[in-house]
């Protein structure tokens, strides 16, 4: 029996039928030494702004922070690929002592001249705040010199979890908003926030809206462009997918530009359809609604037969999921249900109290719900709940595999689109391909038999087990 860190116990609950149960503690700082699966504020900022493909992203600090996220994500661009580089001021000891402003200034000049970006984001890492660099002043100076927006991102890692970084990123992105004409933006227009175009997901979603007759002004930040951000305040509606990362930007747009927001998800058939209808209803246009109905019924009809085949195989299998934000968790629970699977463990890195309440509502009895978990806990529950599948990110993958559990990557590094109706098909294929693989018969946890033992000896063959070095050949012959 694996024991938990006592301080962590309040961040784990088991759903019990009919009872409200204890409230799950969340929104806490990670317990020191617990090998949290979380990252830091820098990581949060970087995740949100990364897909803006025609901007320069430079990390101000020593090399580590920049190099670990060089081209690691599946966030595609239909044009420029500048975002896939890793730029850093690579601060050295001398600059830590005497300040890194000069180097930042020189680096920005150099990179802007070379790559001609539409804007630049300057990410502060932990030590920048400590050594007292005036990043804002450098950014102002370069912006003036080069005539593009140079935006500081207050993303020092120690400021908090990814959530803190999301806020900083939203603030930074918002500096671009409202700086370009909204001409040509019609009444049936929206922005999609919190989709990062992983494996082309923004393109899938964009196609749906175009077919419905709805104009997509900006996808933020998937396949993102500086100019789209600058005019996105002209859209009439904001659809917010990854609510954890982008709600803040949507709220700023609501406050200053009166654009209403809707939380949606494009994962799973149910949630994708709901998202499209939500938008259609918002515009209250009969033709849009009609086109939406036609689209939904056609797309569902197209994927359903294949999904039904997977469902036959997957029915009754048990799943665990541990993802970044709660909204994705809700969708996954529903998508798994559609495949006949039961979610027995659900957790997120950064959910809030409201999220966990909702998660508890949609989960079955007995489901364990965790906040900010760690490898030891995840392994404990995987074994105790005897799961067939784990959905998470690359940090969770080896835990699942080590224990002989199937795995589906639902994080930013994947290269398979899981959003929209067709995404659900990819998702089902992924799940089917891992859960039904014949390899599990060999892993210790599932092995029905151990390696076959030798049958009876052949004839009169006698042999001694080898002991150390083989005897010289003459001796053996004698």
């Amino acid at each position, binding site marked *: 029996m694996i024991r938990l860190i006592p301080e962590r116990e309040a961040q784990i609950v088991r759903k019990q039928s009919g009872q409200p149960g204890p409230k799950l503690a969340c929104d806490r700082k990670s317990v020191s030494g617990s090998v949290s699966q979380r990252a830091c504020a820098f990581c949060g900022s970087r995740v949100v702004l990364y897909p803006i493909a025609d901007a320069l992203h430079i990390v101000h600090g020593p090399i*580590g922070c920049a190099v670990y996220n060089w081209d690691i994500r599946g966030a595609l661009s239909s044009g420029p690929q500048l975002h896939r*580089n*890793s730029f850093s001021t690579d601060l050295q000891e001398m600059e830590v002592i005497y300040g890194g402003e000069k180097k930042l200034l020189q680096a920005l000049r150099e990179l802007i001249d070379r790559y001609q970006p539409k804007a630049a984001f300057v990410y502060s890492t*932990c*030590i920048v705040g400590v050594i007292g660099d005036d990043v804002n002043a450098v950014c102002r100076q370069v912006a003036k010199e080069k005539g593009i927006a140079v935006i500081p991102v207050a993303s020092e890692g120690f400021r908090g979890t990814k959530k803190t970084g999301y806020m900083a990123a939203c603030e930074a992105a918002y500096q671009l908003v409202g700086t370009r004409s909204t001409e040509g933006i019609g009444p049936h227009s929206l922005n999609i926030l919190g989709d990062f175009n992983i494996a082309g997901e923004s393109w899938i979603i964009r196609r749906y809206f175009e077919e419905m007759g709805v104009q997509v002004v900006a996808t933020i930040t998937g396949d993102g462009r500086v100019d789209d951000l600058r005019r996105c305040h002209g859209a009439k509606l904001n659809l917010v997918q990854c609510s954890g990362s982008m709600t803040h930007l949507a709220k700023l747009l609501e406050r200053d530009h009166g654009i209403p927001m809707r939380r949606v998800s494009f994962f799973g058939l149910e949630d994708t359809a709901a998202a499209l209808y939500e938008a259609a209803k918002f515009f209250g246009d009969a033709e849009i609604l009609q086109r939406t109905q036609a689209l939904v019924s056609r797309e569902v009809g197209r994927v359903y037969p294949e999904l039904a085949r997977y469902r036959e195989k997957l029915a009754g299998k048990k799943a665990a999921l541990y993802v970044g934000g709660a909204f994705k968790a809700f969708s996954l629970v529903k998508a798994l249900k559609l495949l006949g699977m039961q979610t027995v463990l659900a957790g997120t890195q950064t959910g809030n109290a409201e999220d966990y309440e909702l998660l508890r509502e949609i989960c079955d009895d007995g489901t364990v719900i965790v906040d900010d978990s760690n490898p030891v806990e995840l392994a404990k529950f995987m074994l105790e709940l005897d799961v067939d599948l784990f959905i998470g990110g690359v940090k969770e*993958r080896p835990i699942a595999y080590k224990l002989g559990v199937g795995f589906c990557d639902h994080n930013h590094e994947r290269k398979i689109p899981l959003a929209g109706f067709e995404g659900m098909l990819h998702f089902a294929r992924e799940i089917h391909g891992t859960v039904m693989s014949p390899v599990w018969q060999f892993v210790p946890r599932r092995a029905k038999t151990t390696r076959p033992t030798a049958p009876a000896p052949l004839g009169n063959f006698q042999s001694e087990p080898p002991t150390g070095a083989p005897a010289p050949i003459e001796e053996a012959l004698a």
Partner: protein
Amino acid sequence: MKAPPLPATAPESGAAAARNACKLCAPLGACVVFSGIESCVPFLHGSQGCATYIRRYLISHFREPVDIASSSFSEEDTVFGGARNLKAGLRNVVSQYHPEAIGVATTCLAETIGEDVPRILASYQAETPSETPASLIHVATPSYAGTHIDGFHAAMLSVVRQFAQASERHARLNLFPGFVSPEDLRQLKEMLRAAGVDFTLLPDYSQTLDGRTWSEYHRLQPGGTPLESIRQMGGAPATFELGRTLAAKPGTAAAWLAREHGVPRVALGLPIGLRETDRFWAELERLTGHGLPPALDDERGRLIDSLVDGHKYVFGKRAAIFGDPDLVVGLASFLGELGVQPALCATGSKNSGMKNCLAEVLADTDTSGLVVLEGADHAAIAERAKELRLDLLLGSSKGYPMARELKVPLIRVGFPIHDRLGGQRVPHLGYRGAQQLFDRLVNTILESRQDNSSTGYSYL
């Protein structure tokens, strides 16, 4: 051996920005060392992101769980110091993992705010004597100084200094392989066992970072160098420390053992290719008096036989090698003995002494036109590579964008290999490693020739 200076060296780039760095940060190297010690948990004193990023980076290469604890600095800790958090973190790691050791590496944040980690660790041990069975290892690894390789060797020195004691003389050789693959570690162990040599390999992550599937969860991966063996390193007959650039450095773990405990330091290159592996065995023979075991002599013989079979396919081909200095030097030496011309040798490390080492191992090779880049990033490497007519690239997966752009095949070696399965099982060392590298090299050339030919023979 005195070697002529290399003719061509590119000037150090004066660029302020690193564009796609060809190095990682120092704490990563320290974590690799701590992962190769039995019952040891790596612990980073800094923000949560450092541990998480490094875990993810290591996991993507080794495809194994890698637990790295963090003291999860907050804004408050940054202002008032992280002592309280570090202590709480250590307590949690002890109660969760029951490790024999915790390897505490600092991050740039902890170093910049001037954390006195040794003092904090001492006060932790004084405050909690009953619940600290774990030995605490400290290494300073600010990422603004050096690379992951410097972090690796700094951790090696810390470990050895902390544990190695004056010990009765014994026959167990110390072997410090440097940052090589788990497959390489297994290969080294097999070689020494075949020669009947008893040894302590440090670090030994051959199992911890490339192990089997479990029936139950292990908080600590089985395997690793036992602490007890490290304690007795002071009584060893010699320390073999691999890596040519390391050999020129005075402050290594092996140098410390030589100075403090009189254990002779045998500084060798990574045994990559025939000549460097021969040197390794020659030194071993000097120590043990035994020659190459028959099975290995056979391996060596087969390797030479295959070099003869394949020599014409590779002769005169031009290659770029990039990565950690010692790996680049070892591979350059190997290419030199095949008749493949190293045209570009690049590393992200500054002042590693790689250029001198290349001159040594390429003394018999035509190095006219060889470009050596130190302190280079991938953008600079790609820019130089574009100017050279290249047939092959050897290095990590981070060279793939360059390979794709230049349409030159990349042979994936070293770390990280993030776009192929089995990076942890790539062999580089010994005759067998050379055999596999050679086969891959020849077949890469054949494949590219076949794919690009208009006829497409199935018989080459």
